[in-house]
């Protein structure tokens, strides 16, 4: 039997795959001095893939392929669009960084696009095997990307740590998935959900173990405490644009997989995953924040901050099983949080990259007096940081707001407790975000060179895009809120 293939539905993946091949061939054929052109091909590929996403959204019908293993619905389209836009911003962040570094060019874009292909597939995956393949397609290229600066020991360490932990977590997850298959006799999430309802006692216990292992694997991917140890070292050692990509796109990929699995496959087994995710959320927020307080390097601080932000994203998961309305608000909250988190975190990294072009350092102290020598960048970095802290009128407040909204929609005491933990944590977080603002604005510059910073146009465009999103969504959150509402199963 020939499987039915809907080429329109697969168009984004096809465009990306074509771009991947073209980049690789171009890198082979172009002379050295023309290799930077490969970034243009990558950009075209990403923007080209956005076109079918838009036409599919305009079309509006849900498309399902391969027996329901691959679905293109609003949920998938929102995330496909999101991943492509995030990648576009990442390309803007990296093009000068990569061109100025003394490294190969074409491979970088090849690896980046391959990882994005995994993400775009992940948004549609509705089957354990598809999810696993998509997750590995996301991860494997990033192992290499993290080690991009070959001659730098830290970059090597970043790569090897990330690789070992990544492979370990994949193994754990795969073991969990195999148990799920053993218990339910299917890899299709809808079938699993159906079978899970009619399991006998011992089989049900096995399913609980299976779910635990599967989620444990994802917890590594989204660097939730206590599975977070790789993140700070990897983030610090990897090239900064790659770190930005890891902390936003790759992390979001993990969350998307978790959403799909929890909401479609495991929803009715709520009492098995809910306590686990509750604990992960509480630990990630608290430990991420408390450790971030003590950092002196801004990349490490942003790493711990992203662990804490991941905790905030997990909070709605922890209450999603309480009732149907709670599940709907929780899904909305996770989607909106991821969208807003991407804008503010990418923005923060973009400014850090821009400033490090002069300071050649990621020490928080090296940001002292930035407000005096580069006021515009200083204002924008403050925007991103205070947005991460959740201060209105910057977009972060709305992310925090929908998170709290999901918590209170659940009406349980466990939900109320995690709500208070989240509230206290959002105050702790302010302290370290404001600490950077303090360096920028309240201290005298330590550098002698106080000429205004010259930022390459691509990087400027990335910063401007993120800043516009952070300010506009902060004042008028309706567009992102609408996307959150659309993205349901």
């Amino acid at each position: 039997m020939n499987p039915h293939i809907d080429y329109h539905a697969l168009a984004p993946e096809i465009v990306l795959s074509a771009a991947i091949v073209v980049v690789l061939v171009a890198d082979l054929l172009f002379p050295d001095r023309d290799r930077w052109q490969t970034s243009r091909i990558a950009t075209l590929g990403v923007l080209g893939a956005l076109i079918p996403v838009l036409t599919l959204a305009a079309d509006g019908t849900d498309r399902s392929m391969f027996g329901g293993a691959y679905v293109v619905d609003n949920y998938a389209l929102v995330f496909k669009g999101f991943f492509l836009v995030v990648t576009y911003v990442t390309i803007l962040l990296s093009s000068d960084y990569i061109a100025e570094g003394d490294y190969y060019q074409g491979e970088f874009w090849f690896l980046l696009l391959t990882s994005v292909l995994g993400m775009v597939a992940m948004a549609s995956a509705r089957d354990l095997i598809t999810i696993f393949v998509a997750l590995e397609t996301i991860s494997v290229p990033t192992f290499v990307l993290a080690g991009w600066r070959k001659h730098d020991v830290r970059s090597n360490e970043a790569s090897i740590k990330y690789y070992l932990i990544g492979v370990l977590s994949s193994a754990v997850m795969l073991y969990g998935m195999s148990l799920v298959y053993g218990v339910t006799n299917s890899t299709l999430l809808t079938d699993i959900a159906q079978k899970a309802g009619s399991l006998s006692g011992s089989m049900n216990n096995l399913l609980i173990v299976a779910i635990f292992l599967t989620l444990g694997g994802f917890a590594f991917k989204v660097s939730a405490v206590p599975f977070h140890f790789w993140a700070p070292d990897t983030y610090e050692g990897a090239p900064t644009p790659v770190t930005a990509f890891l902390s936003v796109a790759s992390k979001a990929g993990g969350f998307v997989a978790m959403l799909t699995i929890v909401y479609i496959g495991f929803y009715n087994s709520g009492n098995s995953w809910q306590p686990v995710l509750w604990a992960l959320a509480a630990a990630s927020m608290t430990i991420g924040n408390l450790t971030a307080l003590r950092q002196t390097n801004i990349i490490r601080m942003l790493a711990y901050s992203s662990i804490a932000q991941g905790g905030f994203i997990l909070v709605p998961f922890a209450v999603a099983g309480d009732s149907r309305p709670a599940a709907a608000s929780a899904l909305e909250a996770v989607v909106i949080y991821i969208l807003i988190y991407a804008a503010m975190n990418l923005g923060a990294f973009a400014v850090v990259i821009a400033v490090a072009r002069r300071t050649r350092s990621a020490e928080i102290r090296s940001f002292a007096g930035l407000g005096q020598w580069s006021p515009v960048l200083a204002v924008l970095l403050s925007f991103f940081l205070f947005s991460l802290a959740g201060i209105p009128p910057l977009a972060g407040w709305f992310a925090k707001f929908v998170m709290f909204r999901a918590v209170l929609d659940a009406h349980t005491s466990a939900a109320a407790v995690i709500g208070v933990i989240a509230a206290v944590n959002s105050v702790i977080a302010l302290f370290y975000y404001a600490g950077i603002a303090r360096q920028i604005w309240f201290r005298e510059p330590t550098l002698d060179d106080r000429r205004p910073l010259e930022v390459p146009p691509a990087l400027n465009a990335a910063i401007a895009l993120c800043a516009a999103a952070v300010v506009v969504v902060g004042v008028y959150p309706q567009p992102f809120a609408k996307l959150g509402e659309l993205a349901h199963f």
Partner: protein
Amino acid sequence: MNWFDSGWGLTAAVFLPGVGMLAVVAAPKADETLQKAIALVTTIATFGVTIALAVSFNYDKSGLQLGTDKSWIDVINSRFHIGLDGISLPMLILSAFITMLCVIYSWDHFPEPHNPKAFLGLILLLEIGMNGTFVAQDLILFFVFFEIVLLPMFFMIGVWGGPNREYASIKFFLFTLFGSALMLLSFLALYFIGPNTFDIPKLAALHGAGIVHSTQNLIFAGMFLGFAIKVPMFPFHTWLPDAHTEAPTVGSVLLAAILLKLGTYGFIRIALPILPQAARDWAPWIGLLAVIGIIYGALGCLAQRDMKRLIAFSSVAHMGFVMLGVATLTTFGINAAIFGMVAHGLITGMLFFIAGSVQERFETRQLDRLGGLLTQAPKLGWILGFCAMASLGLPGLAGFWGEFPALLSAYNPAKGISGNEFVVFRTYMAVAAVGTVLAAGYLLWMLQRVAFGTVKPEWENVHIHDVHVPEWIAWTPMLLLIVALGIYPNLIFRVTDGTVTRLFGG
């Protein structure tokens, strides 16, 4: 007045400062006069709009006026709902008025590190938050405006503040943020447990119907923390002396005159009308903290050596009187509280202006290094004397009408307050009365140390400039208002009484 009826006037009163802020930011860095002129024109125009609103306001009509109710974030059911009533109007005018005078005062008083562009931009951003809070009629909109003020004030203290500015600014920020995080949780709980709306008038009309009494008390607790930290009430006040002392003059004035009122306004606008049952349970405790604040603030004043710190502690005491009036839950007490808010805004705002000017001239605020201001700068000295009198509640000046009726109202608190309300509140009244005596004590003591006596040897041969022109322009309207409200308190009471009776009369 069609333009005002459709809500454009009120929208302009909130967002005009934003237009000015963008213009100030866009102005060339070198042209400071242009930046100042833009800020001045914007704040004057905003004040003009609020006056026009006051003119077209119908004082006999109860309910909201001149507002608008537009869609904002449909997905969470929150709307851009703003409107004016008798409680909002005086606060809105006060906010626009004080901001305008602050810009005038700043004209040639920019503290180090100068940078008028950033300073004025922050003042204008602050004004959006303050004006917006006083007119917002949707809980989420209120929350957003309430929080907008944090960033500008944080930077104002942190960049232009005194030696201990880093500590003071982050302390201010963390305290307020902690309160507002829990306040937001309360708003959401109210939404989901209650009638699924964030609309303040609708919620107030329901009086907490459908919410179990014990849950009401919990929700009230979250709001209480949010507002009480902002006021600030007794155990949460520790951020205030630091923030006030370290802030630049204009920052202190705005903090004292407007930002503190966001807290008391929150009680009157949100906490009390929406959860009246819980308010009755909480009232004795609020009253207790208010009275402790009155006495503790006064004793704190007597222990200060720094003029600004002394005025900051006097704020704790004065806001105690306002909260005592609020805690009685009577129309009489709440009218007094609103009057007290306006009066404290004018008087303490003036005192901080004077403290700033004294510091500018003597480069110190240490009370034991000051003295004989009346010989060196008699006009400044007399203005200080006048404001001290107003602050201690001398009849005939504005301070009296905030304090005295608040005390009186405690004699007869609202029915239904839990416990033996008469005994409790009459005790509060007696203790608070002692507070007024202490207030006279510390204010006269300050006046004596600063204005009377002989000039200290270190200043004998130094020329001390008397009041400057920008100071005259900024201060005269405030001084006149302090007298006008003292002689004719109905200027405020007539505006507030209708709304207060509608919300708390039944």
